[in-house]
């Protein structure tokens, strides 16, 4: 099986009456997209993988004033394959002024022996709103995970909001009580937008307080956003913890912000 | 910066700021009680702030709040990483930061009290942190403690011997303590108190008032400091 390169694209435009219209919906197998609602698109995996050597690129462009929801029908299983180079998944998302993006695919599962690079570039206009969830499962049941390097960059009007790398399958990190402890999954959700902007006149020596639960925390960022981070023993527990954190983060939003 | 006389004294720029008073002494000698007593006596006349280096529990906060002597917002706790003497002597950065944070939030202040964590007889405040310091002993430690000396007993600007009401019960001879303290303190004052009986520690408060007056006479009235204007030089 030879390595695959695919580029898919979702682009919205504002239609009359303030509605959202899908201007472009371009699938490129194995990245296959299906419109499942007026403003909703599902990623439908066709074929196994990604495998080592594959390069998948998804572009998401949410036009000013429109809204879009992106989900997936199932988990992504990252597999080893024969190539020497890692599989690469790049998601570039731009969310325009006053636009809203909800991005919550099912988890990425790192099968033993895989080598994966996941890159997210999320660029928000000043008053764009986003919900972005990411879940990574360390191997199938009872399996040691392959390797993964996930990089997440979110900017608001060009200013950095969140820049994070997660490394899985590295000797220095696996099982470290400082990094994942004994968890088998890691997840995060970013809720960002003007509703989460820090107070205009903060006490400069005091940060906003996080909400902390069992294995999760809703962390107010320095910029306009809250990141929920969670660790879990399995995908079900992870999702449950993320949901708790997401609720806490959502209730921290300032109405009309 | 430069060859300024104050540099020799090693204190932060003293002009126009509060007097910084260190209160040190062994565990249980009554430091927190003395802080409460001073707040009670001095609160009406002086603008106060308190930095505490003790394990500052809700209980301690409640103690001071119940005493009704100071707005709890004016108390900042400094964690010392299990080394209370380090935080007041070898590495005073966190305490200086806390003092200045109080002055930024509530300034101008007349007096900032820095209460050390309970430690042993060798713990004293750096002159970079405290302009004046009080060392608190209590009689139940035994009447030989002043004779043993140690930097706290010998060099503090004021030595307070607390819990005099317990002296008969623990067999402590106050005369001996007074005589021994005088012998090692080179004329610096010693006051005997029972904060349990004198809730305002009035003799100590009087001494502090005198110190604040002398400080302001020398360095001027405190004025407000904005955040991070200049390095403490």
């Amino acid at each position, binding site marked *: 099986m030879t390595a695959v390169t695919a580029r898919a694209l979702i682009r919205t435009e504002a239609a009359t009456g303030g509605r959202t219209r899908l201007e472009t919906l371009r699938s490129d197998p194995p990245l296959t997209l299906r419109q499942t609602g007026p403003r909703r698109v599902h990623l439908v995996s066709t074929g196994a993988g990604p495998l080592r050597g594959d390069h998948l690129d998804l572009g998401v462009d949410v036009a000013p004033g429109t809204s879009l929801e992106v989900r997936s029908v199932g988990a992504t299983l990252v597999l080893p394959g024969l190539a020497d180079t890692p599989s690469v998944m790049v998601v570039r998302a731009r969310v325009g002024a006053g636009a809203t993006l909800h991005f919550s695919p099912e988890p990425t599962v790192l099968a033993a022996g895989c080598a994966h690079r996941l890159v997210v570039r999320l660029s928000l206009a000043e008053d764009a709103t986003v919900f972005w969830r990411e879940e990574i499962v360390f191997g199938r049941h009872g399996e040691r995970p392959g390797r993964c390097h996930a990089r997440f960059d979110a900017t608001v009007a060009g200013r950095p909001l969140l820049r994070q790398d997660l490394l899985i399958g590295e000797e220095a990190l696996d099982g470290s009580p400082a990094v994942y402890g004994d968890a088998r999954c890691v997840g995060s959700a970013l809720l960002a937008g003007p509703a989460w902007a820090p107070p205009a006149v903060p006490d400069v020596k005091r940060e906003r307080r996080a909400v*902390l639960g069992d294995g999760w925390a809703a*962390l107010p960022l320095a910029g306009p956003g809250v990141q929920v981070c969670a660790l879990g023993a399995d995908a079900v527990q992870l999702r449950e913890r993320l949901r708790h954190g997401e609720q806490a983060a959502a209730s921290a939003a300032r109405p009309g912000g | 910066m430069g060859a300024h006389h104050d540099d020799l004294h090693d204190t932060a720029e003293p002009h126009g700021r509060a007097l910084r008073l260190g209160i040190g002494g062994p565990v249980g000698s009554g430091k927190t009680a003395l802080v409460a007593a001073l707040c009670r006596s001095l609160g009406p006349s002086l603008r106060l702030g308190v930095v505490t280096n003790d394990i500052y529990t809700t209980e301690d906060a409640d103690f001071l709040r119940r005493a009704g002597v100071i707005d709890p917002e004016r108390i900042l706790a400094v964690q010392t990483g299990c080394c209370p003497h380090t935080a007041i002597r070898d590495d005073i950065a966190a305490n200086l930061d806390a003092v200045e944070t109080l002055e930024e939030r509530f300034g101008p202040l007349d007096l900032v009290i820095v209460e050390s964590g309970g430690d042993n007889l060798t713990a004293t405040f750096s002159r970079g942190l405290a302009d004046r310091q009080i060392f608190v002993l209590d009689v139940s430690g035994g009447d030989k403690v002043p004779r043993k000396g140690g930097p706290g007993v010998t060099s503090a600007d004021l030595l307070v011997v607390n819990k005099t009401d317990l002296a008969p019960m623990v067999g402590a001879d106050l005369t001996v303590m007074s005589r021994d303290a005088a012998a090692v303190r080179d004329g610096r004052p010693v006051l005997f108190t029972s904060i349990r009986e004198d809730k305002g520690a009035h003799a100590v408060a009087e001494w502090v008032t005198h110190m604040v007056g002398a400080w302001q006479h020398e360095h001027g009235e405190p004025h407000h400091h904005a955040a991070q204007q200049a390095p403490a030089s």
Partner: protein
Amino acid sequence: MNGEAALLLLADSRLPAGGHAHSGGVEEAVRRGAVTGTGDLARFLRGRLATAGLVTAALAAAACELAASETAAELWRRLDAEADARAASPAQREASRTQGRLLLRTARRLWPSAVLDTLARAVPEGPHHAVALGAAGASAGCAPRQAALTAAYTSVTGPATAAVRLLGLDPVTVHRLLADLAPAIEGAASAACASPGDAAGPTGWHALPGHSAPALDLLAEGHLTNPMKLFVS
């Protein structure tokens, strides 16, 4: 002069800049039972170095490089914002800014320079520790790699010392862990200085490492809920 002696001063735990009171998450890990002995501690330190250690090393190197050129306040604010974006946990940001503010205060007296004055004005609430460390390093005569090495080194030495105090571990055994980490500390410093992509300087800041440690985030937030904490973080 190649900055070697300055490097030693900057990395010394006796540098009076408040570092002794930070455990880097160890106190909470101990409280939660996640670190109970030297085995856990070794894994904790290795993971901390590969995440927080690498990130602060990269930011410190960037700050040190920035300090070498004529620098506007705006660039310091931008670099500090890059540090913000790499710290999702508000407790961690606050601890980092506290350490940065204290280090800057001390560094301005040790190595007075226009760069440090500019940084203090640019970020009045206190720059992130890594940013202050890089700027202080530059003012002391260190090269960016030396600043990175200091950041990587202190990212594990402080937590190691805290574990000795909190768990009563054999200090030599714990220092052996640090000795074993020496190659990884140097590796982190090298990785921190590897120019990300093609661009060095401000145009390359966006690509600096942001290795996150979810457990450290949870520990940092949990630490704030500990009413009996002995360390600041």
